[in-house]
């Protein structure tokens, strides 16, 4: 990435964040219709303050967010920032464990596939099939065949395995693409011609240089998994994380909580993209 583009991205970041806040506030204030009547009808919620203050206008909403005041949740009682702060560690733990398993498995599988290992192709096909099955069916199969009781393990374990299995196929495809591109390069061809052992070529030549786009992608991927990937896993396996919190907020139309969750996700994702660009610009790996 060219240096000016990186500077441009950094300068754009505050503008993007402001626009994102405005966009979400407008979307939430205009889309679902009439929040007051819905709240009165569904839960018997009566705001203690006058309506104008309880359901602020777009401008007031925007202004309070700029002052870092995300408000209080309608249904869960606590302040939104506190709820988010409490739920994030579980999700971060889940994602971190998932990543520790996901990347080694995907890279190993892609190398096995390229070496035409006997079982690797079947395994990869199995992963592709599993990744295209909806999460709810996997959960139903797990609960009907009472796999929880067979192994008596914590829901965290199942959630991590679930997250890994659903992401291995796409990451393997990506690794294969980059490894194949690197393998076609002249210095690798030369190493093969010089009869350097295949393992050395793969570890010291190809993985080191070819997987650079994968390393650059890690911050973005991590943020995407934290804020959107874990939602289904947390809801299905009843883990009180960020995904569960956003799901509750969306289901019960808890506007301050929805906005809080969305803004946290957006800020982190935007920062992760800039971090990814920064890594891409600064990390220069020497070819062996």
């Amino acid at each position, binding site marked *: 990435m060219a240096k000016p583009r990186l500077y*441009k*991205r950094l300068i*754009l970041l505050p*503008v*993007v964040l402001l*626009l*994102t806040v405005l*966009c*979400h506030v407008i*979307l*939430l204030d205009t*889309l*679902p*219709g009439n929040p007051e009547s819905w709240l009165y009808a569904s839960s018997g919620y009566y705001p203690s303050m006058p309506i104008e203050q309880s359901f602020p206008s777009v401008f007031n909403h925007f202004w309070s967010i700029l002052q870092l005041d995300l408000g209080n949740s309608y249904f869960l009682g606590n302040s939104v920032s506190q709820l988010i702060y409490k739920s994030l560690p579980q999700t971060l733990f889940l994602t971190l464990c998932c990543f520790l398993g996901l990347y080694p498995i995907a890279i190993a599988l892609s190398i096995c*596939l*390229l070496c035409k290992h006997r079982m690797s*192709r079947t395994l*990869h*096909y199995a992963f*592709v*099939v*599993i*990744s*295209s*099955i*909806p*999460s*709810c*069916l996997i*959960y*139903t*199969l797990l*609960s*009907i065949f009472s796999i929880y009781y067979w192994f008596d393990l914590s829901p965290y374990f199942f959630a991590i395995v679930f997250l890994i299995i659903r992401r291995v196929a*796409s990451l393997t*495809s990506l690794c*294969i*693409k980059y490894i*194949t591109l690197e393998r076609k390069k002249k210095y690798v061809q030369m190493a093969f011609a010089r009869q350097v052992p295949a393992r050395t070529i793969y570890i010291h030549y190809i993985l080191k240089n070819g997987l650079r786009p994968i390393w650059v992608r890690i911050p973005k991927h991590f943020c995407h998994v934290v*804020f*959107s990937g874990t*939602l*289904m896993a947390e*809801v299905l396996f009843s883990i009180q994380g960020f995904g569960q919190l956003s*799901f509750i907020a*969306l*289901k019960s139309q808890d506007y301050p909580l*929805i906005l809080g969750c*969305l803004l946290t*996700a*957006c800020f982190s*994702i*935007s920062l992760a*993209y800039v971090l990814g660009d920064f890594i891409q610009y600064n990390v220069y790996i020497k070819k062996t």
Partner: protein
Amino acid sequence: MIKKLILLLLLPFLFSDKPLLIYHQKKMYYPCITSYLESDFGGNTSLVMDYLDTESKTLIKGSWVLKTPFQGLSIDLSLPHASTGPSFIHWLGTIPTGQDTLSYALHALYINVYTACILTVISYYMGCFLGMLHAKSNRSANLLMQLYLEVSRSIPLVMLIILCLKKSIVFFLFLFSATQWTKYAYLARIQSIPLLKKPYIIDAQYQGISTIKLLYKHLFPHIRRGTNALLPHTFLNYFSIITSLNYFDITLFPNSPSLGKLVFYAQQYPSHTWILFTCCLIFFGISLCALHIPKLKYCQSE
């Protein structure tokens, strides 16, 4: 894949409560395509024809009727219990609401597949077009496009679906096309930048053809190969999201069959194994179809 989708388009004509054709008093009627009133068949009331109702049956008695081969989504009241196992009439049994499982599952599949297809096509074309425009635009326009891209990326699909529940589907599609295009835009932009320096593009620019024509006639055919690789993944992703949301009773089409609801029935009634069997049959079938998409079978091309 396209042939399979066209075959799927014929599903409502195979599983329907309405007859395909009626030849009544020297006139042809097409109930599967249009809805008729009872007064059209000589009845007194202007109610919509219910072809399973005894009164309606007497109205079309003596007419030539071409029925669909399988029963539709009507509730079979002749059964002792709502949910019964497989039989000659109901090949895969019935679900707890008394509807035929096979018809229900295939109608739901039809709805989900086409919704996912429409969403994929919209995001594909919007993404490609905006990505190419982003690559071609000059400095200030480029900056604006970058801003639009960053803001659009921040709105997740799940949120859009849940927020648009009580709104019209057209409104949802409008919002979807305005926001969910970033994945293809990135790809299209990356592939367009080197292509813009090619002589044939420069030549086309000097000939003075419009930007839209340049993008779609000269640039789009060349970037298609790269962007098409993502299509099956996107389709399966949307299909999976829609089904998972249906499971939590969040649907874009209320009161219509949904695969998520079928999975929910399978979980609620584990002894009714035919429901789980149908779910597995459909989802594993779709996954196996996905395996036969050439872009996913890269191992063979290696």
